[in-house]
């Protein structure tokens, strides 16, 4: 087996040095009745070229050569090629969690830079070194708010990504965190009056998403005021991190839970992505996950270490702030490289291009016969809900013939919008040609 660096002679000599006759002697503590005496029924050993062939075949059975208007929490942005050349350096790829700081400064310094940029982008004071993803990050943020406030309820906007809400429900069910959902108003923003009414003296936090699931930017400052007036924390979840180049950061929030997939991470059929929690410094001790801090060695040289680990499971065990251990470090590294490539000017320009593309898509689709853009009364980033004359499923099935993947049908999660509503997205990678083509296809003619 090509990954194993031993010759048959090595094995024999090593067994002799150990003082056993055969390898099976080393497995003698496994009762005989449970020893597997046959080959595992898994595919036979493949040569490297065969492995590539096998996966190329898998890849060809996916959507290759389609133009796609899907977003909904996962966004296709351009990934500068240096991301993959850098993260495939073995020193980053094949290192462990930086528990030995003297030989882990590369990862540690990069994660300190990550934390710094996440703070800047979100308007928060501190950020951790990543969570699994945006959905689990949002759930952990709620648990954190419960610890901070000593209260136990959460008020959640229905415009938070439906799958995030499902994950939150799973996490909350055994922690006695009652959750209440509040709807949206005609402009797609959270129904502020309903929100206000839903917050009680037992509410630990309000969770909103901005831009929300419909692509609409929420009035974070106004919602913060309502939450704070009743002593609840405001958590803002951000599923489209590129929006932060042009959308005001949710600085009035207490905790921000960000999904950073948009920063140079492939859509990759759902993961791995990069969640991260950022918050006000006063909540530091309740923060889950790993934190990197700056310090000095005995010669006064700057260095970085994992710090405040007394919050974590390997020290606190059942009293820890979370059970999280492994995080998404290499993916956080990708986002760090992405952010350094775009930087101060590029993040803004990139976000502006996304705004422009979505505005164009909205104008051409909104103009097609019988189509209507919903929730048009509030600012949005690069997604919108379109009401079409036929069911979204039917429309999409027809579009597949033109090698187009249409917007995401919403009836499954928002039945009140009817079967004809779907969520459309354009990013800087969506071309005018693709947008004109889908508009033409909806109008029943070829572009």
């Amino acid at each position, binding site marked *: 087996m090509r*990954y*194993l660096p031993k010759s048959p002679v090595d*094995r024999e000599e090593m067994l002799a040095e150990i003082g056993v006759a055969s390898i099976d002697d080393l497995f003698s*503590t*496994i009762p005989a009745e449970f*020893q597997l005496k046959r*080959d*595992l029924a*898994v*595919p036979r*050993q493949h040569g490297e070229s065969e492995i*590539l062939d096998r996966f190329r075949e*898998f*890849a*060809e059975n*996916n959507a290759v050569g389609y133009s796609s208007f899907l977003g909904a929490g996962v966004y*296709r942005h351009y990934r500068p090629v240096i991301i993959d050349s*850098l993260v495939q350096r073995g*020193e*980053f790829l*094949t*290192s462990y969690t930086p528990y030995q700081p003297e*030989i882990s*400064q*590369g990862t540690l*310094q*990069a994660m*300190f*830079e990550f934390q*710094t940029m996440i*703070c*800047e*982008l979100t308007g928060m004071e501190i950020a951790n070194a990543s969570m699994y*993803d945006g959905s*689990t990050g949002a759930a952990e943020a709620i648990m954190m708010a419960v610890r901070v406030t000593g209260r136990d309820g959460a008020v959640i906007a229905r415009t938070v*990504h439906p*799958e995030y809400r499902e994950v939150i429900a799973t*996490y909350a069910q055994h922690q*006695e965190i009652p959750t209440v959902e509040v709807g949206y108003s005609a402009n797609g923003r959270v129904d502020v009056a309903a929100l206000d009414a839903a917050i009680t003296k037992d509410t630990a936090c309000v969770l909103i998403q901005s831009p929300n699931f419909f692509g609409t*930017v929420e009035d974070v400052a106004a919602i913060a005021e309502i939450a704070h007036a009743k002593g609840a924390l405001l958590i803002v979840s951000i599923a489209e991190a590129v929006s*932060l180049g*042009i*959308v005001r950061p949710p600085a009035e929030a207490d905790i921000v839970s960000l999904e950073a997939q948009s920063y140079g991470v492939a859509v*990759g059929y*759902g993961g791995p992505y990069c969640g991260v929690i950022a918050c006000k410094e006063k909540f530091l001790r309740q923060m889950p996950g*790993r934190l990197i801090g700056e*310090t000095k060695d005995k010669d006064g040289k700057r260095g970085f270490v994992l710090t405040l680990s007394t919050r974590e499971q390997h020290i*606190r065990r059942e009293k*820890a702030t979370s059970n999280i*251990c*492994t995080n998404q*470090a*290499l*993916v956080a590294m990708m986002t760090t490289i992405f952010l*350094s490539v775009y*930087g*101060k000017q590029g993040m803004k320009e990139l976000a502006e291009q996304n705004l*422009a593309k979505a*505005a164009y898509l909205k104008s051409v689709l909104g103009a097609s016969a019988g189509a209507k853009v919903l929730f048009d009364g509030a600012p949005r980033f690069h997604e919108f809900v379109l009401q079409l004359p036929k069911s979204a499923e039917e429309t999409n099935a027809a579009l*597949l013939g033109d090698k187009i993947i249409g917007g995401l049908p919403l009836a499954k999660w928002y039945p009140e919008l009817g079967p004809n509503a779907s969520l459309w997205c354009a990013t800087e990678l969506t071309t005018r040609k693709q947008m004109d083509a889908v508009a033409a296809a909806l109008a029943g003619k070829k572009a």
Partner: protein
Amino acid sequence: MAVEKFVGTPKKATTHTNQNEDLMFEKSSPGKKAYRLAQLDVPAVDSVALLGDSVRTDLGVMPELSEIEIIRHFTRLSTWNYAIDLGMYPLGSCTMKYNPRVNEAVARLEGIAEAHPYQPESLSQGCLGIMQTLSDALIEITGMDAITLQPAAGAHGEFTGILLVRAYHESKGNPRKKILIPDSAHGTNPATAAVCGYEVANLKSNAQGMVDVAELERMVDEDTAALMLTNPSTIGVFESDIHKIADILHAKGALLYMDGANMNALVGKTRPGDFGVDVMHLNLHKTFSTPHGGGGPGSGPVACKKILEPFLPTPIVVTKADGKLGLEYNRPQTVGRVRMFYGNFGMFVRALAYILANGPDGLRQTTEDAVLNANYIRAKLEGTFDLPYKTQSLHEVVFSDKLQAKNGVKTGDMGKRLIDYGFHAYTVSFPLVVQGAMMIEPTESESREELDLLIDALKQIAREAEENPELVQTSPHTTRVQRLDETTAARKPILRWKAPAAPEPVLVDTAAKEW
């Protein structure tokens, strides 16, 4: 003719930035760029008009750098890391094995890397096929009946597994109250039990570091939901009484959860499903070679017996009537979703590539080599270091610093000193049941030559501990930074860079020195 004398810089060669790379913010200067967007092919928009009050005006300390500077920045940082690619990483319980590069290649194939999780099932047959093929292989390897790939890491798998346990008991009318956890367990186990709303009952190990079966029998009652057991245990020993343990639990209606962190000792040699385990997680980033990447991403599939299958998170991959693969969401007894979409899919691709590269013969040989390596280290170092438990080791061996601690040299010191010899430290002070633990897991990826280097280094360090304890206590001596002040880091946390409040005076050494 007077020759002009060459005037060098006053800096010493050792101050070159490749040894002292600044933070990217300190290297930034206004107007530099590392990007060029595609030409905009639609009308530009006025962001202020579109966003109104919600428009952003400033991006603060975000850096401005050129591409070559970014390449050098991260490349320089990378050279400050130790890595499997550089040498042996004997971290016990972490399974730091070789991360094959073909895994990376296949994960980046366009049709795989660019697949959107909401694209139609008819256009996702490849991704679903990967999930199905991997699931089948993992079910066979573990001897279980069903699996979910959704959990994002080992601890997330534990969470999912204990949710299944809870849902199972609830379906019988009583969720029960407590989870039994041996004192040798990973910290994630008790943390997980707490997140799932259970009390933790601590199960003391016996003199051999194993589950004390009599004590277990005494503790298990109708309030016990499950035992969370790592097998082989964190001291690298197979629980030979495993079936008896399972029987004791099952007799009281409790379940056996296995933490699969140490599955690298078992693949192809025995199957948890055969020895009584009801539910377990796997760490694809340990046993199945997906890269640790400096702390993640991981992937923590959970395999279970039939009795727990109805409770698995949604969706699961199924074969539909027409023979195509699909995602099944309609599962009334599900515990719900534990993560959006389907899990860390990119890790499934890599793990499957690893299984294909090995086949049944390679998987078994891998396990045998991992166990051979650990036992070789044990045989060579027993006597040099105290071996608290004499039971037969599988994939890892746990020594203690008892012999060296007499001279004031602790496990942490010797771990640091190992760095000077070109290795990563072993796992220090874990498991907690061993005072001064030194936990060594070589994995199958080490040649005999590399093992001998490690053995020599540790013997040398033991000698230093006798002859020159201070040398060990103050190590490492060869790294870019010395031991760092972790106390101040925690007491006065600096968790982000901040721009200096006022421009710092620029110190220019006008009297350039001559070489």
